């Protein structure tokens, strides 16, 4: 019996890259078990591969040479996370060993899994709903402790529950309106206008809160973006390299794209930080430079924090700052007066948005890091306070729903015929449905019958 969703057998290392004590690999697909049988030599002969039993033994290559000591478990089709026949292998964490095992498996007919492919299979197999699928994707890319917490909370369903609650509220309002349409002769006391509008406002308030949480949520998910800018030779690359060297470098979750600027990931205070050196943009000459400047500007504009480097050993730097910063529309700019080691005298009265540093002597760098850390903490929402939207897709859905609910509210206020706000509310419901699941007409009717005594 072939699995139609997956004709190939796929493999991937499922623990993060880098050295670690133990690493894990997952194989999924119709040949998972047979590939394992080919390369697994149980320590005790009578302890071969059996469903759901963890086995200890050796991973051997095609010539039966032992690569590593492993533990392994096999799950039959339909009873695994992906719904496919699945094998997991736990080996020692050395980079070479894991690679070698993976290559051997590929040599036996498997192919590399695409990013998120296991999760997609799990979703299609009905093992997880859409929010959960998205949370798993977030967990996979969660490189730091705080984003992991948010992702975990999503997975635990707090988020689904919260949306479920909003949906309940929406259905309540809709039932109110629908009842007045389908039962005009019944003695139902429709809520007075004021109460209805206040229900609308309560719901809208909650959605707007959620939307707001995205500002911080996005940072949790995508990382805090710092752009380093400044005139040529202000020391941008030196600072970039300095920060990279001092902090733990992270493996980028969005690897593989060719960029004409330098971008790296570091960890500051447990938060993922994406640090971008716009210097790379100006290295090319001629017409490309113009293009480069344009994209530098857009990076500086969209950054959560701009580190603007100024060479205070050059003449007229103060004037330059004024003209340069006029062009950059970003409210979060930290001016770094660099090369204080070269400058004869300290500059006068630097403001609170200015730090004096020397990339050469590393003076002021620890103060800079403290400041960056403070700024990140000021932007990140309080994760314990409530549910946070971290997905751009969800943010979009909430915005759409909000728009439709507002339209419905205004129509009720204008005493427009009720089938029209009902239309808008159903559209809004559809938006929320696309985040979690489906509302049936039956749900709305159920609410009507529970609330009103109907029966002519």
């Amino acid at each position, binding site marked *: 019996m072939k699995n139609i969703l997956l004709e190939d057998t796929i493999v991937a290392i499922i623990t993060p890259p880098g050295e670690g004590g133990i690493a894990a690999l997952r194989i999924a697909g119709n040949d998972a078990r047979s590939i394992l049988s080919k390369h697994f030599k149980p320590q005790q002969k009578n302890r071969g591969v059996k469903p759901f039993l963890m086995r200890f033994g050796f991973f051997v290559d095609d010539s039966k040479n032992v690569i590593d000591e492993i533990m392994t478990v096999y799950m039959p089709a339909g009873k695994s996370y992906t719904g496919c026949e699945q094998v997991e292998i736990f080996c020692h964490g050395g980079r070479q060993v894991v690679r070698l095992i993976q290559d051997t498996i590929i040599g036996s007919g498997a192919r590399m899994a695409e990013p998120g492919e296991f999760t997609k299979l799990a979703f299609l197999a*009905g093992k997880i709903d859409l929010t959960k699928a998205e949370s798993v994707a977030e967990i996979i890319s969660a490189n730091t402790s705080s984003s992991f917490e948010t992702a975990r909370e999503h997975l635990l369903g707090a988020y689904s529950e919260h949306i479920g609650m909003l949906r309940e509220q929406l259905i309540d309002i809709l039932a109110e309106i629908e009842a007045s349409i389908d039962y005009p*002769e019944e003695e139902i006391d429709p809520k007075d206008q004021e109460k209805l509008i206040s229900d609308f406002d309560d719901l809208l308030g909650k959605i707007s809160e959620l939307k707001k949480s995205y500002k911080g949520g996005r940072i949790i998910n995508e990382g805090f973006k710092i752009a380093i800018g400044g005139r040529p030779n202000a020391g941008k690359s030196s600072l970039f390299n300095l920060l990279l060297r001092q902090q733990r470098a992270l493996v980028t979750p969005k690897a593989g794209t060719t960029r004409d600027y330098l971008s790296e990931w570091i960890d500051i205070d447990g938060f993922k930080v994406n640090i971008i050196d716009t210097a790379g943009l100006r290295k090319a000459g001629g017409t490309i430079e113009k293009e480069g400047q344009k994209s530098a500007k857009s990076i500086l504009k969209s950054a959560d924090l701009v580190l603007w480097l100024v060479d205070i050993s050059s003449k007229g730097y103060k004037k330059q700052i004024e003209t340069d910063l006029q062009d950059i529309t970003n409210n979060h700019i930290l001016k770094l007066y660099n090369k204080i080691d070269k400058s004869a005298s300290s500059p006068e009265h630097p403001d609170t948005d200015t730090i004096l540093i020397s990339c050469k002597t590393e003076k002021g760098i620890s103060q800079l890091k403290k400041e960056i850390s403070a700024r990140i903490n000021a932007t990140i929402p309080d994760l314990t306070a409530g549910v946070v939207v971290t997905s751009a897709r969800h943010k979009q859905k909430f915005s759409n729903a909000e728009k439709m609910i507002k339209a419905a509210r205004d129509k009720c206020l204008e005493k427009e015929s009720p089938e029209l706000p*009902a239309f808008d509310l159903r559209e809004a419901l559809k938006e929320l449905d696309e985040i979690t699941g489906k509302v049936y007409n039956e749900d709305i009717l159920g609410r009507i019958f529970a609330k009103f005594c109907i029966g*002519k």
Partner: protein
Amino acid sequence: MNYDFDVIIIGGGHAGVEAADVSARMGKKAGLITMDASKLALMSCNPAIGGIGKSHLVKEIDALGGLMGKAIDATGIQFRRLNLSRGPAVWSTRVQADRIKYNDYVVNYIKEQHNIEVIEALAGKLLTENGSICGVLTENGDKITCRTVIICSGTFLGGLIHIGPTKIKAGRLGENAAYKLSDSLDELGFELGRLKTGTPPRLNGDTIDFDKCELQPGDTPIPYYTNDCNRPDFKQMPCYLTYTTAETKAIVSKHFNDSPIFSGQINSTGPRYCPSIEDKFYRFADKERHQLFLEPEGNGTNEIYPNGFSTALPEEIQHKAIRTVEGLEKVEITKPGYAVEYDYCPAYQIKPNLETKRVSGLFFAGQINGTSGYEEAAGQGLMAGINAVLYLEKEKPFILDRSEAYLGVMIDDLTTRSTTEPYRLFTSRAEYRLAIREDNARDRMYRYARRFNLVDEAKLDAFDKLVADTSTEIGLLKSNRIHISQLGEVGERFKRKDSISLEEYLKQPGVTVHDLIPLLGNFNGDFSDNREILERAAIDIKYAGYIEKQQREINKFKKMENESIPEQFDYTDITGLKNEAKEKFTRFRPISLGQASRIEGITPGDVAVLSIYLKKHKDTITK
């Protein structure tokens, strides 16, 4: 006796007569089996046709050449339009019937159809051959042969009446019930379930003090269902509104346990939207009183139907309780109220053409499919009749989708969801509510009426002209402008303009065609004096933006509906599919991906898996 027919219809209720009529008019020889030929299309409960959502069905039935609209127009005693203060999508017509005259009208109408033979008998056994229907055996042992059968058994299939502790085997008080037919269905392998419905006692109008009740007159102009009805000397009769009292609540509450609904005697589910009076006081204990409508049962009778007082309490308690209602202090009951339980076949067993999956050529319509209501029954009867004929001619089935008609919404709901209570239509069931309205039933249905030759050529042509005149009228409303000073409060919304087009005026919230009519006098005589044309144009303008948006949704929806799934498709081999989903798909057998997605309990993931499978195996799956 030895008969042979193309189509046999079992049951002469609202579904049965439509099925017989349409198959006969489509050229087939129809045999209508009923226990009492004088009781065709009898209203067993409420003497009224229509209401919110249901009237949409009547309009569609009429536009498909059905019988119900004509019959009620000819015999109605009070006509009203509901929801007129709301938008045109939810305008609905409700007509009080003269119960006896309606029944007479249909009996005579059927008598005049030369292709229909009415057979007085009790159907007992269905005869099949190689999985196809081939005849019916009556309880008397007479054999009737045929190629198709439509069962419209109503509450008579295994009917059991409850009045207090008393149980009577009957589908309607004083009549018989069909038990052997249930056995026959069971033998053929159909799953049967039980449903319950109820009716109030009937009252002697001469013993009612109507002065204590609120008068509810009919509407003028009279909103007939059909467009060519004319009853010049007709005078409408009023209905009355009254209320239960604290004493009613006390008596009913004291006797909850005497009602078979609470005593455990009845286990089947009744409709939540039509609860018995004991159910109302029980479930909504904080509500002090309930409203009742006193509806005359006709011109030649003093019998009154107290709508809202359905009950299965013992007769003496019914008597005691109803006399506590305002105006009914001295009322006499002519017939007691009762609950009735009956058999139905959960509708996953039928296809969207209403033919059973199990037996070819066997169709179900009405309460056997778990519905309630005359209009729902008639709609299914009509659709089953047409489809039985198409089956005989080996033509493609006639299936309306959810974006086309309430008929489509109803049948789709029935074939994708399990019945938990008798099903009735509401406008909230229609997701494309703004597009499927009373006023445009002909726009939606006439092309099918033309295809099956169900409506006179002349009527169809006259309608084409109406459509053309409507677009002329819309043009006029767009091009003629009016000074804002003439528009009162609405005019104040326009500060920067001196004048706006009539179209723009109509689009304003709260403005309806009724506001527009008095203004038209200011213009030269270009506008049509046909009110219907003006109304149609106004609706078109009012809903234009929404319809456009809804149309986009409909297009998306149609795409999914057009992804067809073969009838005998085997779901067991789709390995990525949950077992639960496989079972659901196999049980309901959706005809399209769209329908598959609407089956209860099916997740978007299941549909994705199915869709991928269908795409991958497009070439090997025979359609």
